[in-house]
C-alpha cells in the first residue's frame, strides 16, 4: 500500500466521522429545540398523514419551488434527481455481489440511468450557476461560498463522468478499496489522477456538509411551516418553556 492509499483511508474515515457526527448533532439540535407556537404555512394539512404527504411533495417534487420559479425548479430538480441516480449507481462499489440488493443495483437500466444522469446533473448545475451569474437578484444574494459549492459539485460530477465516458479507472481495484474501508481490511487505491481528484473532492463535500448550507437537507424535515399539523384549536400546543411561564404565573397568583 502506498502512502497515498493510507492517506485516503484516513481521509475517508475522518470525512465520514465529521459527516455522520456533524449531521447527527445538527439533527439532534433541531429535534431538541422547541417550536413554541403553531406556525404552519396555511392552507396546511389537518392530520399527521396529511403532513407526511405535504413533506413528501416537498422532498420528492420540490412543490414550493415549483410554485416559485420554473427555471430554478427545472435545474434544481434535475440536479438533485441526478444526484440520487448517481448515488444508486455508486452503490455497486460498496455492495458485494452476493448481497441480495446486488441484482437491483447491478442491472443495466440502473447503471445507465446513473451514467447518463451525470449529464443531467452537469446541465442542472450549469443552469443554477448561470442563474447566479445572470439574474441580478440571485447574483446580489450570492456569497463566494455559494459559487464555490456549485463548482465543487460540478468538479465532482465532471471527474466522475470522465471516468465513465472517457478514461475508465480500475473499478475492480476501486471496489476492493471501498470494501476494505468498510471491513477494516485496507486495500490499495488505484493510482489514477481523475479518481484521486474525484474522491478528494467528495471527502471535502462530506467535511463541509454539517457546517454549510447543505444543512437544507435535514433542515427541511424540521421546518415548522411545513411539518406542523394545522389543528391549534383542537389540540393545545405548548412548549416546555411556554409551560414554565404559565406555571410560574400560576404559582405567583396562588
Amino acid at each position, binding site marked *: 500500500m502506498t502512502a497515498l492509499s493510507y492517506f485516503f483511508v484516513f481521509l475517508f474515515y475522518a470525512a465520514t466521522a465529521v459527516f455522520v457526527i456533524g449531521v447527527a448533532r445538527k439533527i439532534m439540535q433541531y429535534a431538541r429545540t422547541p417550536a413554541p407556537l403553531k406556525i404552519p*404555512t396555511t392552507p*396546511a394539512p389537518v392530520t399527521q398523514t396529511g403532513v407526511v404527504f405535504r413533506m413528501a411533495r*416537498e422532498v420528492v417534487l420540490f412543490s*414550493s419551488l415549483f410554485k416559485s420559479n420554473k427555471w*430554478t425548479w427545472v435545474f434544481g430538480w434535475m440536479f438533485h434527481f441526478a444526484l440520487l441516480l448517481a448515488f444508486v449507481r455508486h452503490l455497486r462499489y460498496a455492495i458485494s455481489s452476493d448481497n441480495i440488493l446486488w441484482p437491483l443495483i447491478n442491472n443495466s437500466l440502473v447503471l445507465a440511468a446513473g451514467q447518463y444522469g451525470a449529464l443531467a446533473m452537469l446541465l442542472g448545475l450549469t443552469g443554477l450557476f448561470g442563474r447566479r451569474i445572470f439574474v441580478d437578484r*440571485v447574483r446580489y444574494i450570492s456569497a463566494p*461560498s455559494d459559487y464555490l459549492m456549485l463548482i465543487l459539485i460540478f468538479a465532482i460530477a465532471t471527474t466522475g463522468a470522465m471516468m465513465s465516458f472517457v478514461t475508465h479507472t480500475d473499478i475492480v481495484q476501486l471496489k476492493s478499496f471501498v470494501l476494505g474501508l468498510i471491513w477494516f481490511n485496507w486495500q490499495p487505491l488505484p493510482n489514477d489522477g481523475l479518481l484521486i481528484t474525484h474522491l478528494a473532492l467528495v471527502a471535502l463535500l462530506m467535511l463541509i456538509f454539517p457546517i454549510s448550507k447543505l444543512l*437544507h437537507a435535514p433542515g427541511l424535515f424540521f421546518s415548522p411551516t*411545513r411539518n406542523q399539523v394545522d389543528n391549534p384549536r383542537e389540540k393545545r*400546543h405548548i412548549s416546555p418553556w411556554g409551560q414554565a411561564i404559565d406555571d410560574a404565573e400560576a404559582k405567583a397568583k396562588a
Partner: protein
Amino acid sequence: MADFEVPELQEIPVIPKLKEGAMAHSSPFISKEQFQIPLGYPGELVENWEEKVYEKMDDLRKRYRSFQVYLDACVKCGACTDKCHYYLGTSDPKNMPVARQDLLRKVYRGKFTAAGKFWTKLGMPWMVGAAEMTKELLDEWYSYFHQCSQCRRCSVYCPYGIDTAEISMAAREIMDSVGVGQKYCNEIIGKVFKIGNNLGLPQPALVDTLEGLEEEVQEDTGVAVKFPLDVKGADILLVTPSADFFAEPHVDGLIGYAKVFHETGASWTMSSHASEAGNFGMFIGSYENMRRVSRRIREAAIELGVKRIVFGECGHAWRIAYSFLNTLAGPWDFLDPNYPVPQHICEYTYDAIQAGKLKFDKSQNDWRTMTFHDSCNVARASRMGPKPGGQFEIPRAVIKAVCNNFHDMPAETIGEATFCCGGGGGLLTDDLMEIRVKGAKPRAEALKSVVEEQGVTHMAAICAICKSQFTKVLPYYGFTMDQIVSVHQLVGDAIVLTKSDSDE
C-alpha cells in the same frame, strides 16, 4: 401629495431591476424609555450592546426551532427574491426576503457557525456571507426589519418553508432587548396593558360609542339592535379590533356583526377589559408580551362567564386567535365544547346562513361590484371552518350570499398568493408612509385590473389594518378611500332585520 415618488401602476407586473439603497432612508420613530419600560425592555441602547445582541440571538435560537433551522437551511436559491410586495414596490434588494434575512443571518454565521468563525479569523468573513455586529448594521436592521410586514408570502415559495416573518420577529425582539424598540408598536402595547385596547379608549368612551351606534341603527332601520358591553352571563364574548368602534369602514363592520347577532337571537357581549382583538406583541416577536395581551381575553371570558368566544374582522388578530390563543391563554375547557375556540365572525355568519337563520335583500348591494382582498395573516397563517382553505371560501361565500356582483382579482394575487396591503406587521404608522404606499403597489395593480376589466367598484377586507391602510394609501394610486369596505358592512347592508313588538 407625497414627498416621494409614487410608483406608476403597471398593466402586467414586472419584476424590477435592483436599485441598491432605494429605501435605506426608511426607518420608523424609535421608542422612548416611557414606552420601553412597561414591556420589560431597556429604555435606550444598552452598554456592551453587541455582546447582548449575540446573547439574545443565542437565547432565541435555543427557544425557537424555526429560527435555528431557518438560519441554517437557506441555500440562496432566489425563489423568494421576487415575492415580497416591498421589493416589488421599491426595487431595493434588501427588501428581497433572503437579503432581509441575511442582515441577521450573516451575524449568526460569523458568531455561531464553524465556517463563519474560520473565515472571520482569516479576515475574510464575506467568503461565507458572515459579518460582525456593528452600529451601521444595527441601523440597517432597524430600517429593513421595519420594511417587512411579516405577511409570509415568501414562506409559501421557499423550498424549505423559510418564513422571513420568524426572522424579522426575532430581529425586533433582539433590538428591543438592547433598547432599540419601535415607538408605534411599543406605545400601543403599553396602551393595551394600561387601558385595554390599542386606541386607548377607556370604558366610558366605549359605552358612549356603543350607545351612539344603537341610536344610529335604530334611526336607520327602526329596529333596536343592541351593542352590549360587559354583560355578565352572556353566551358569546365578541373580541374585535378597537378600530371597529369608530374608524371607517371598520365601524360598519361592527354594525354588521351586531345585526347578525340580533337576527340569530344570540346573547352576546363585548368586554372593556379585552376591548382589543389586535395583539402587537406578535409584531415585535415577543412571546411574553403577546401572551400578556392574550391573557386579558381569558380574564374577560372568566369574569363575564361566557360560553363562546368570537373574533371580529382582523387579520393578525385572527392568526393569534386561531393559531396561538390556545397556547398562550388556554386551555379553554371552561367554555362550551360544542364550538371551536375561538371562532371567526365569518364562520359564525356563514354557519347562520347555512342554517337559514338570516334573510338578505341582496339588491341592497347591487350598486356595488365587489372583489375581496385575502388578508395575509388569515390566508397564510390560519384557517376558517373544518377544511384547509376555508379561510378563502368562507368569506367569499358570505359576500356572495349578500351581493350579486363579485369578481376575484387575478389568481396569482389572492388565496395563498395574496399580496399584503403594505401596512401589516407594525408598519401602519405615518412615519412609514413611503414604504406603505410602495408596498401597496402589487395589490393596487391587481385591483386596477378588475376595476378596468370587470367593473369592480369596491374591495372588501376582513382586517382592521388592511382597511386603515387601504383607505389611506389607495388614493395615491387614484382610487377613493370609500372603495374599501368591511365584509360585515355588506352583510349589514343586505340583512333583513326582524322587527319585534317593542320596535313599533
